[in-house]
């Protein structure tokens, strides 16, 4: 049932050709197929972090295949996504990982990471399978084949705080709210470090249950501290939406900073342009003209955005482009290796000290925080809402910040039990 529906949808997605910078157009004999594993929650409450990514990969792969596939070594390959629903459970994830590797014969596995990863770790190492995660907190010295090549959450959040401190030197009191999970807590430590580095005092931190439905009490409690800056931490996009409405209702007028603000047009609609003016976050729209800069490693982002929305209207989130950008990096690495074999691709990727991340060249990094240099860190956009529209204000430089404030960050991570050696 699902298959027919998806075929229908992708058929309408258009068959345009991606930029030739990534995919060479081959006019003849594309015969071999390489399978890419997609192991993430596709049903249940966490599926919002998986399903839109699967949609994005399918749109991307469809476009790539329509353009003739990819040439790796001497062969031309068409791509195929093999997906498995891990239901965000470690046991299902291990079953899925084994199935993808031993039966589907995939050449690398994209995962959301988080709770299911510990179930998979041993087998992933044993089978020497290249895997990727969106949550770098899964990285440790025991994960040599796991990469975080796209999202290096939460370290990029420092760029937003740096921008804020530079542009609003009078703002001195910040409050932070964060959901109690593996996204929220390391992010709190990051924001605390970034605020400390910028000379801003954090006057309250409120860690809330992800099952919260009514944010009125939380907002009341935080506004009682009279903040200049309200920091949403890495609250889920929907929480940002609801908290912003509450802030607006309860008359907050100060600065706002967040990791995500995926659906800001909704928030603008529900509050006001004035209320949202100057809202700082980290995820650009994919029709942002600044994404057409030459150093951006994502072919025709604006067109991809349009294709996606045509195929799966109303489901776009940050993961819709994050997983596809990992597919693009893998293609790049496979081409360089001249092979699709996992360890050779990994070697090609890790062999270079820097690597084309979606937002430009980035370094393999992470030793200090995760005990292994398997995360790509470089530039990351600072996005600001101006007159109801999100625009990239600048590309912040994470390594430069790190060089100056490394000690603060490590201390804050340690205080919140987030260093890799502290994780139970």
């Amino acid at each position: 049932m699902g298959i027919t529906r998806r075929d229908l949808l992708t058929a309408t997605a258009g068959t345009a050709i991606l930029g030739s910078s990534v995919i060479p157009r081959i006019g003849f004999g594309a015969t071999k197929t390489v399978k890419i594993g997609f192991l993430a929650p596709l049903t249940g409450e966490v599926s919002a972090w998986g399903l839109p990514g699967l949609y994005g990969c399918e749109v991307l792969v469809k476009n790539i295949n329509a353009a003739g596939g990819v040439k790796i070594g001497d062969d031309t390959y068409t791509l195929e996504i093999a997906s498995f629903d891990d239901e965000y459970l470690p046991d299902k994830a291990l079953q899925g990982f084994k199935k993808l590797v031993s039966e589907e014969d995939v050449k690398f596995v994209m995962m959301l990471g988080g709770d299911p990863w510990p179930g998979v770790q041993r087998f992933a190492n044993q089978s020497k399978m290249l895997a990727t995660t969106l949550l770098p907190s899964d990285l440790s010295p025991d994960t040599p084949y796991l990469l975080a090549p796209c999202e290096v959450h939460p370290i990029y959040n420092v760029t937003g705080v740096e921008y804020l401190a530079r542009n609003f030197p009078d703002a001195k009191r910040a409050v932070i709210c964060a959901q109690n999970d593996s996204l929220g807590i390391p992010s709190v430590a990051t924001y605390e470090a970034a605020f400390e580095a910028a000379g801003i005092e954090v006057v309250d931190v409120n860690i809330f249950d992800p099952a919260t439905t009514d944010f009125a009490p939380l907002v009341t409690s935080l506004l009682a501290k009279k903040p200049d800056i309200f920091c949403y931490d890495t609250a889920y996009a929907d929480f940002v939406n609801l908290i912003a409405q509450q802030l607006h209702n309860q008359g907050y007028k100060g600065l706002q900073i967040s990791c995500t603000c995926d659906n800001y047009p909704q928030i603008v609609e529900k509050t006001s342009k004035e209320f949202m003016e100057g809202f700082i976050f980290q995820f650009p729209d994919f029709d942002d003209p600044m994404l057409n800069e030459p150093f951006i490693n994502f072919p025709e982002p604006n067109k991809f955005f349009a294709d996606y929305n045509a195929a799966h209207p109303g489901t776009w989130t940050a993961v819709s482009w994050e997983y596809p950008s990992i597919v693009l990096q893998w293609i790049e690495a496979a081409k360089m290796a001249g092979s699709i074999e996992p360890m050779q691709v990994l070697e090609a990727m890790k062999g270079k000290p820097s690597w084309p991340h979606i937002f430009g060249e980035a370094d393999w990094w992470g030793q200090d925080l995760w005990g292994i240099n398997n995360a790509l860190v470089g530039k990351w956009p600072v996005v600001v809402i101006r007159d109801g529209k999100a625009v990239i204000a600048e590309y912040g430089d994470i390594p430069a910040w790190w060089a100056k404030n490394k000690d603060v960050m490590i201390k804050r991570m340690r205080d919140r039990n987030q260093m890799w050696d502290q994780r139970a």
Partner: protein
Amino acid sequence: MDIILQTCVNALVASAFFALMAVGLVLIFGVMGIINFAHGELYMVGAYLVWYFYASQGWPFLAAVLAAFLIVTVIGLLMERTLFRPMRDNPLGGLINSIGLLFILQVLAVQVGGVGLMKNVPPAYRGSLDLLPGVSIGNQRLVALVIAAALLVCIWYFLTRTKVGWALRAVAQDRDAAALQGINIDRISMLAMGLGAGMAGVAGALIAPLTRVEPYMGHGVIITAFIVTIVGGIGSLSGAVLAAVLYAFFHTFVTTYWNGTVATMMGLLIMLVVLIVKPTGIMGTRVSE
């Protein structure tokens, strides 16, 4: 001081929704003896209907709420007729059927609206009313509060002042005796289920602009509704309302002054204590079988 008042306002709004959900559950359990696990999903359907009629089709908000009420009521009637009535002598069967329906409704919501971000339901009533300096209530919340309270009053009037209401309560107290009095159990069951479902639908519809409208939104609500139902006493409608208010105030204050997780944990423990001290709930009179 203004924080305390603002927290009271927050709690008042929460109590109205808790009460709508809990009273529906109590009606259904009282009359049919079935735990409706799909109650949260009826609430979800109500919210989706408002999203569809109001946000996508451009109906007036109140018309969309009315439509949600009617449609969810009909769903409730169908549930009674097809899923619960055949299981009348098998409460576990009714429970499992409601769980089956829960899965079905969640998948349908995914198919209709997709997953990802919550559905966009802009507020119909913008701005907020300043009650005192530093104490305000959003107009959308105010409208929701007023409608919810009005509905509760109507239900109360219906149950205590009309003949059908009396009959319904009689069935809730003793089904067999009521049947002997010539009360049509089938019709009363349908009425209870329709009303209970309709109230869940209205709760979801009213809260749609204020919360995450997504396929799994019923999950957290049902847990709260169970707590309220138990604390109030399963057979007691006024108990459910009183418990909703108490629980909402307790939870909101602990969340404001401490932490939401602690509030839920303590709420659950208080419920346990109530069950130990007075196993029939604060207002319950029926002894458990």
